[in-house]
């Protein structure tokens, strides 16, 4: 009885460790990445003071993260204040995918940003979308951090 209890507890501890380490690997935060989404500011430029120009995506994803939505709300506020400005949303992918699929993925990412801006009152007339697929990386590295910087949608002033 005693032994089995010890074993049981032992197992529980082992399980707890496993669960923790699994968590640690799946939501690894390296300072510049959360999961595989870039969270740093190296490549970010500003449309106006406090209005970052780009949002980042996970591999193969076009879902906006909480941070991306916050950035886009700032862009929407800035666009509402400057109602004559039109923009191009440039969607990009990293180099780890086939060229044609990445063109489609870049388009999907830019449209995710567009849809969100529209829900904050920005008319689709002011937004055009341009996908570059993997053709215009911002970081030429071949490593996960470089790839995370390249999976992006960048808002560019068009006028």
């Amino acid at each position: 009885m005693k032994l089995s209890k010890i074993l049981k507890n032992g197992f529980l501890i082992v399980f707890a460790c496993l669960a923790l380490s699994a968590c640690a690997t799946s939501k690894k935060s390296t300072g510049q990445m959360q999961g595989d989404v870039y969270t740093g500011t190296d490549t970010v430029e500003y449309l106006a003071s406090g209005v970052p120009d780009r949002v980042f995506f996970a591999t193969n994803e076009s879902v906006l993260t909480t941070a991306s939505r916050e950035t886009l709300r700032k862009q929407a506020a800035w666009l509402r204040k400057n109602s004559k400005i039109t923009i191009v949303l440039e969607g990009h992918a990293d180099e780890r995918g086939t060229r044609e699929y990445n063109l489609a993925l870049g388009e999907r990412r830019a449209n995710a940003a567009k849809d969100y801006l529209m829900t904050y009152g920005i008319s689709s007339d002011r937004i055009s979308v341009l996908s570059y697929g993997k053709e215009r990386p911002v970081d030429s590295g071949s490593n996960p951090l470089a790839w995370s910087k390249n999976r992006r949608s960048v808002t560019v002033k068009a006028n």
Partner: protein
Amino acid sequence: MKKFLITLIIILIPVKSFGLIEVDITRGNLNPLPIAVSPLSIDEESRKNFESILKKKNIGSEISSIVENNLKVSGLFNPLNKDAFLQEPDIANLKPRFEDWNLIKAQALITGKVSYVEEKLRVEFRLWDVLAGKEMMALAFTTVPNNWRRVGHIITDKVYERLTGEMGYFDTRIIYVAEEGPKTQRVKKLAIMDQDGANNKFLTLGNELVLTPRFNPTSQMVTYLSYFRNLPRVYLLDIETGTQEVVGDFPGMTFAPRFSPDGKKIIMSFAKDGNSEIYTMDLENRIVEKITNHPSIDTSPSYSPDGKFISFNSDRSGYQQIYVMKSDGSNVKRISFGKGIYGTPVWSPRGDLIAFTKLHKGKFYIGVMRTDGSGERLLTENFYQEAPSWSPNGRVLIFYRETKTDSKGKGFSAKLWSIDLTGYNERQVTTPTDGSDPSWSSLLSN
């Protein structure tokens, strides 16, 4: 592209073939056939004439080195060193001393003669079976002198066809994207060259980004993606006239174009509002048809050679996989079920296989599978490679490969590579600049 100026005059056809030497193309290059390519003989007057026209000292030797190089690169033949040849080219062409050729272990022998006839280049050549001591083939043709390289390719095609029983692929061209500059600002141009890398020519200036050129069935037109005026659209280019026109002028991005096997339609993707669907456009009446209808990414379409089916990749299952449907869009079936993600399906000209790119555990593969997805076979593994294109006889694939950059982001390159369907004979196809997105033409002399 020049019309096919080569007139073929068959001067001799062997009455009966005795099933002599044969090359087994399914075996790979484990045992390339030893072949002697005797320089094509040339009389002094013809030699001088061609020297003044073509600036080549001995056009006979030049043509035979093209043949020799083609045979070597095919991986199926081992052209023997000319220093060991005992018989003079002109005499060998009349009647080979088979024992001499046997001595240097040649199993087959090519001989021939070049002459200058009425301002034209006349070439005759013979293929001999050394062991049996018999002539296997004799052909002659006449063409304009400037076509001399093509003569070398046509001779190779005839020899290849006679010895393997398969159609050749040497008198062909490759269209591709020539690349230069830093990885973050690549300058890309359309370029075309002979299959062996000769006669490279740039077709666009590099002012706008161009991607994914593909030949039509007669190899006189090319469809590709251009970012002209920052509007990514599918274009059509006539290689001979240089005329370019937009064909995919839809309210959104059109991309991933290919011709239908009859050359009458272009199939492509059209992306709008975050969704990419496959469409066709009839080039004559410009009627557009929507083929897929799914909220996922559907792209990289490629017709079966009979035009009845279309393969494409879609992420409707969550990740990029290969699907096949009828050409009207009905009967969509997923065919790739292996581990990893699959893209860029391209139907083989024989119709029995689909070549693809696969990503699994951080490595990229070029592979082939049957059209129902069975019999998957991976031919090559690398850090990054994609976009296979078939040689017109379906025996070789050309694709591009990119290198991993170092910790400082340096050392990027993109190169063209080819590999046999057997998985053997992997080799780089040299281009003057970096290259990607290759597309193989049809056989020009057919």
